[in-house]
Each structure stands twice: as C-alpha cells, then as structure tokens.
C-alpha cells in the first residue's frame, strides 16, 4: 500500500496532474489509503522545506564533510544542469520561481522588497542575497526597498538594471527586454553604456546589443497588468499574441500574414478570458478558433 501511496504522491504532486477521479477511486477502495498518502506527502513536504534552509547551514555541512549532504547535491545538480543546458546557473542558495500561463504571483524578498510575476514568467533569486534577481522570461514588477549602500540589481538578457529607489516593470519576451519605471530611478548597464530612467521612461533593448530604444509611458499604465490590463504601443501582433497567452493562459497565436503588423491599444483581460474574440475589434483583426488555440488573422 505504501508503494501505491508513494506512486500517487509523485503524480498528484505535479501541477500537470489531472486524473483526480482515478485518485478518488483509489482512496475510496480502502480508508487506510488516505492515511498512507498523507504520511508520504507530509514526510516529503517536511523534507523539502528543510532542504530550503539546509544549504545555508554551514554547521551541518562542516559536521559531515565526507558525506556531502544538500550542499553537495546542489553542486551535483548544478554541474549536471550547466553541462546539459549551459544557461541555468544554480548556485548553492539560488532558487527559481516560475508561474504558469495566466498565473500571477507575488514573491516577498527577505529585504522587504517584492516582485510580482506575470504569467509564464521565470526568475532566479538568491536566498543568501535578496538584492539580486535574474529575470529569464516573462514580466515582473519590482517594488524595491532602496538602499544606497546595497543597490538592487536585476540581470536580464545580459543587461544589468540597478535601482535607485524604485518601482519598475521588466518584461522579457524572446530576446527583447523592456523596462518601464513607475517610481524612483533605474540605471541600465551602469558599467557599460549607462542609461538613466526616471518615472514614465521606458527602454527596450535586444540581447547582445546596446542600441536602446527609449520612450515614455503614462506612469499610471506601468504595472497595470497586475490589475488585469495590458497596453501595447506599436507592438507587433505576434508579440501581442504571446503576451495575451502568458497573461490569460489561453493559447493565442498570430497568423504569419499579420504577425509583423504593428498596432496600439489597451486590452482589459477579463472580457478576453470570457471571449477570446473580444480582442478582434480592438486591433481590427479577426480571431478564429483552431483546436485549442485562437488565431489572430486578417479580418
């Protein structure tokens, strides 16, 4: 029975698990099943939560140098991952926070700052140093507690953003990074080619280039995605389809014939979630269904 409970715990523990009817049937087959499952899940969760603090505990590591423990495991994990992927840099205390498409999550950092992630975003944070973050993809709104002696640093697509007391929005879609400042000042790449952004300033830049495209946006609009609204300024329909998919969890794509077309407009997400075709009139396009996804196309 323990084996079965463990097998179910592995399955239900994954966000993609959907066969809850089969799991219910297994539970109903014997009242002892629920207890066996709870025992396994509780043990695993306790262990995972201890694992979160264990690597920072030097005393434990010193006690058992030959046997390794989490610190060694983390190193082994990082070696394997770096060797295979080349981009995930898992140091001891770093951890990844990811959101599913359509999900929004706020992460509180130890220094009193917080980061709100939009849908399908991925950020690497550091337990030992709450003043650094690497945004790998998606959208994040940083509300940073300012400290002159220890500025908050965001790495994104090889560019460095340094806060000077601040609320700012960062989006990374493909190889393009966009920054918009709502409060305070953000310094972009201060070591390389400095740009200084003040409230209402926006900047976008491509990986491997320092050619900044500067602009402005109404301050009230920056970070408005948290309240369920997305505004596009001269964005391609391809980019818009991508952003809509991340933000709503509904799969949108742009037909090749219109993917490069640039439009401007502001979308309230709630009506789009009820009816994906609601974006059509706004951008002067047609939205048609193909299987599970919605295609943005010529009217």
């Amino acid at each position: 029975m323990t084996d079965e409970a463990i097998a179910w715990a592995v399955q239900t523990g994954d966000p993609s698990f959907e066969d809850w009817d089969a799991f219910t049937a297994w539970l109903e087959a014997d009242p002892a099943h629920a207890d066996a499952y709870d025992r396994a899940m509780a043990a695993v969760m306790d262990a995972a939560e201890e694992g979160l603090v264990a690597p920072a505990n030097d005393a434990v590591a010193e006690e058992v140098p030959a046997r390794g423990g989490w610190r060694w495991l983390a190193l082994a994990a990082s070696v394997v991952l770096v060797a295979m992927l080349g981009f995930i840099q898992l140091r001891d205390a770093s951890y990844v926070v990811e959101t599913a498409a359509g999900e929004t999550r706020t992460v509180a950092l130890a220094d009193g700052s917080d980061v709100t992630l939009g849908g399908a975003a991925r950020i690497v944070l550091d337990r030992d140093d709450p003043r650094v973050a690497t945004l790998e993809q998606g959208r994040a709104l940083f509300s940073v507690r300012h400290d002159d002696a220890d500025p908050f640093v965001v790495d994104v697509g090889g560019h460095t953003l340094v806060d000077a007391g601040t609320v700012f929005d960062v989006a990374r879609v493909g190889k393009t990074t966009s920054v918009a400042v709502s409060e305070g000042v953000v310094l972009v790449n201060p070591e390389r080619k400095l740009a200084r952004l003040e409230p209402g300033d926006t900047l976008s830049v491509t990986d491997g280039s320092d050619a900044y495209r500067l602009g402005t946006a109404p301050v009230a609009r920056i970070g408005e995605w948290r309240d369920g609204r997305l505004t596009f300024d001269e964005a391609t329909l391809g980019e818009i389809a991508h952003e809509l998919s991340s933000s709503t969890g509904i799969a949108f794509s742009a037909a090749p014939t219109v993917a490069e077309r640039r439009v401007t407009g502001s979308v309230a997400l709630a009506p789009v979630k009820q009816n994906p075709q609601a974006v059509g009139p706004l951008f002067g396009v047609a939205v048609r269904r193909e299987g599970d996804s919605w295609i943005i196309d010529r009217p």
Partner: protein
Amino acid sequence: METHLSCTRILTYRALPSLVLSVSSNRAPNGLEAAFLANRERLLRFLRARGAGDAAEDLLHEVWLKISTAAVGPVAAPVAYLYRTADLLMIDRYRSERQARRRDKDWSEAAATVPGVSDAPSGERVLIARDHARLVAEALDTLGPRPAAIFRRHRIDGVQQRQVAEEFGVSLSTVESDLRRAYRAILEVRERIDEA
C-alpha cells in the same frame, strides 16, 4: 443527489460576506468559481475519500474561500486546480495534527520524567529533529546523485516533472521512478525517527 447547482444554492450554503459580495454584485462567477459550482459534489466526494469525514462540508467551504478571496489569476485547468487546492488543504491539516500529536507526546514524556533524572527522551528528540535534514540528505545520497538532484529540482525549486525530464535529458517515467525512490527513502527516515 443534486446534479446541478446554481449560485443561489451556494448562497444558502453559507452566506459569508465574501459569497454575498461576489454573487450579489451581479458579477458573473469567474472560470474558477464556475468550475467550483459545477463540481461541488465531486469535490465533496474527494474530500470524504481523503478522510475529511464530517468536516468535508467545512473543508469544501475553505476551498471556496481560498478561490474566491485570494487573487488567483486565470487558471488553465480549473477543475484540477480545485482538486489540488482541496488536496493541499488536507495535507496541511494532517501536518498540523501530526505536529500537535508530537508536541503532546514530547510534553507527556517530559512530564513523566522522574525528578532529578535528565529528560533524555525529549532531549534526544530535539537532537533528532535538528539532524533530520542531514539524515534525509544521507538517505537520498545512497540513491546516487540523480534522484536526489531530481527531487530537489522538482520539490524544492518547484519545476514541473516534464521540464525536469528535459533538463536532465531523461524520460518522464525515469523522473517519476527517481522521485518514487526519493519519496520512499524520505518516508523510511521519517518512520525510523517516529519509532525511536
């Protein structure tokens, strides 16, 4: 047994402010709330199967409060999300009951200690708790580096199993089997300590 449930039914179920607010404002229930209303009986059955007993209705109400008050963004698979919320609620309940039981046990053992004799059992227990992380790490160590690394990536970093499989260049079933071995090792450590 009811097969269809309207918003009105939910209102009479327990008219707490959040429910009144969300329904009386004439706002259409969002996707998650609609899924809850449509699957109420299934969720109740699940909670009972999970051992909720008489508390099943109360726990179902807690699920409702979680989805209607928390700022949950749109969810791709709402029914699975509801089941997961209910399941986590039951696990939380089990964990806090277990902690309470252990505290009671420690307390009664300490209280039963003869005056003048050191309270060795509870001292031992404290030591065991502190070393628990190390025991778990050792147990995972014996499985080899991959199961431990896969466990960490999935359970601690929160990466989905399919993506873990891609990162490690193995099949999904290998990830599942590594996780099963890791879970078993962790459960064995737990049961060894509980028996001590």
